[in-house]
């Protein structure tokens, strides 16, 4: 891979020369400015507290107390279980759709590297390994026992994995740079979520996710961070969270690249 060339368009990246870029030995691959600016970032200060969607893109009447109507519905129906909240980094738009198609369905796994900086920062913040948490811990002087957090990627069924060649959630999870625990597995050759409509997604029967018993002890009383590429209705993530219930984790949060 060539770090000077954009992963998407193949043009020269033309990063602005700063002291940091001049002095660092890092020339990891990424996107150029034009390609990057076509993604729509979700402002973390103005996003739904539960699903992480950009509230700026919604009508005021669908928001109450910085929670969107969809999440209220989930709360009311009691479908949340031990699922806590989701954080998403980008909104879904045509450009993102194109990039994700190349990444997921055409198999260009290298594209994930372009999201490393943002994804890693967001992941580390959730599991409490960013500099701010470290600083707080130092400043308070008290020796907090550090909360453990386990990163679990959303699994693919065996057939799908064979067809696609890689698990996109696992590739994303590895960007965080912390050990990844493949504690979930997916059974059955279920129909693709992306080929179903909203009702079908919410109503399909048995839970396809299963917890690997070998990990249930590790997960007891810890925080779990689920990683996936996209949060659409939240049904998949909630089912995966439900599969953890047996191991009784403290809570299950999730981090997705996209909300859409």
């Amino acid at each position: 891979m060539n770090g000077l060339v954009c992963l998407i368009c193949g043009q020269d990246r033309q990063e602005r020369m700063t002291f940091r870029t001049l002095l660092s030995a890092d020339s990891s691959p990424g996107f150029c400015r034009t390609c990057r600016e076509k993604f729509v970032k979700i402002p973390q200060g103005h996003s739904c507290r539960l699903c992480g969607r950009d509230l700026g893109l919604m009508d005021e009447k669908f928001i109450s107390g910085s929670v969107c109507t969809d999440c209220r519905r989930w709360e009311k129906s009691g479908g949340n279980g031990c699922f806590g909240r989701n954080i998403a980094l980008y909104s879904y738009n045509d450009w993102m759709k194109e990039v994700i198609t190349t990444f997921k369905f055409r198999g260009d796994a290298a594209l994930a590297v372009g999201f490393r900086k943002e994804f890693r920062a967001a992941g580390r913040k959730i599991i409490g390994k960013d500099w701010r948490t470290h600083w707080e811990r130092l400043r308070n002087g008290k020796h907090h026992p550090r909360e453990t957090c386990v990163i679990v990627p959303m699994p693919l069924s065996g057939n799908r994995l064979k067809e696609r060649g890689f698990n996109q959630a696992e590739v994303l999870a590895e960007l965080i740079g912390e050990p990844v625990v493949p504690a979930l597995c997916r059974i059955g050759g279920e129909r693709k979520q992306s080929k179903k409509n909203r009702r079908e997604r919410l109503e399909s029967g048995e839970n396809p996710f299963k917890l690997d018993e070998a990990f249930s002890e590790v997960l007891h009383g810890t925080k779990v961070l689920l990683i996936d590429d996209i949060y659409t209705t939240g049904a998949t993530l909630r089912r995966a969270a439900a599969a953890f219930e047996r191991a009784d984790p403290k809570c299950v949060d999730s981090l997705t690249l996209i909300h859409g």
Partner: protein
Amino acid sequence: MLSSSHSPETTSFSKDLRQFLYGRECPLEEIPFSEQLIRDHVSAGWINLTDGIQTSGDGFFSSITGRKKYLCVRCGNANFAAFASITCGRCGRNCVYCRHCLNMGVIRSCTKLATWIGPAPDRAVPTPEEKLCAWSGNLSPEQTKAAAELDSALSEGDSFLIWAVTGAGKTELLFPAVEHALLRGERVVLSTPRTDVVRELYPRIKAAFPEIPVSALYGGSSERQPEAPLVIATTHQLIRFHRYFDRVIIDEVDAFPYHFDPMLAYAVKKAAKKGASIAYLSATPPADLKNAFLSGKLRGVKISRRYHGFPLPVPRFMWTGNWPQSLRKGVLPKSFIEWVRGKNAADRPLFCFVPSVRLAHLVTELLQKEGFASVAGVHAQDPNRHEKVTAFREGRIRILVTTTILERGVTVPGAEAAVFGADDPVFDERALVQISGRVGRSADRPDGDIVFFHNGKTLEMIRARRHIEQMNREGGF
């Protein structure tokens, strides 16, 4: 050698599988037949499997750096930067994949490419008495001579260069050679880097060979016929073939992106059978072909006269002053405006070539502001590009502002052309010669004005003019 229980002669192979795979190169998992059937064919020696990506890690340099060399067998990509690796879900190991030909389906190190090496299917050979070519026009003496030479070269299996000025009637002089090849039962492909050119050629070829199934292949094409002996395709589409064509004709061999993307030359080489002859057609052949021709290594012919027998219009240079600055101020240079006004009053359709997409928008806008009514701008990403070009052909649009995408393949009778900002590095000799070739193509209006508006002559402009004058001299003017 151990004798196997079933030798290729005794057992029969699946005809459907052969029809699917013959002349193609297909990743194993994309073959729509059962795994068992394919395995049987492989062990019987009818199907050959090769690694999708070849790795070579030997040599002093790579043993020190640990860096390996990869080659994507499908697209010929050997650029290290265009490969990436992933922990593969299929083979469970670290797999390298090619990012260059990704949009045709990913090729990984664990991918096997299948090709048919068993007996070839029989072909329907037309009876020799039949006349396949229905084209009834007459060739000029130059065309007749070139057509005869091309025919004999291709029949003898030699490659051939046709170096013909723009508007020489290259397509028509192919017909005799194509007809003879088809009569011999050979598969012929007429390939070109540009989709527009395929779209223009298809109806003409189809009309010329009404009895023969013709297939047109380009991104999003609908005229696909699986067994057609005559194929018109963009060079990109040839990547799907493997040792299939007996004769390859490449039109506009110097057009973008053929000489910028080595994958396309690789695709042509792979689609042709071993030892197949290749005919190259161009008005401005690239240096390697030109040198091979001039030194006698490549057979060929030069046609320096248009089919209608009139000389090529020679470009004029006109100084505009600092045009980037005037555009920034929102005005078009005076000399340019006056020229456009004069031509517009004389009611001639005008091409106005500009160096970039941004300028296409800007110049269109400024011309509209100047009060010219039917002005339109086109560029490669324009979704209405084909409609606008059609409207220009039909005379509904009088001034067409365009980037270099329309430098070839478009014929509008009586059109005249201006190159705005001809000193921009985008306009090299090749492009300027092609643009000048848009003018005076029809027999009833063989003259026309071609003006390069510039802020300082460039070497490329002078070379282009010299090229055209030289061709005219060789044509006897």
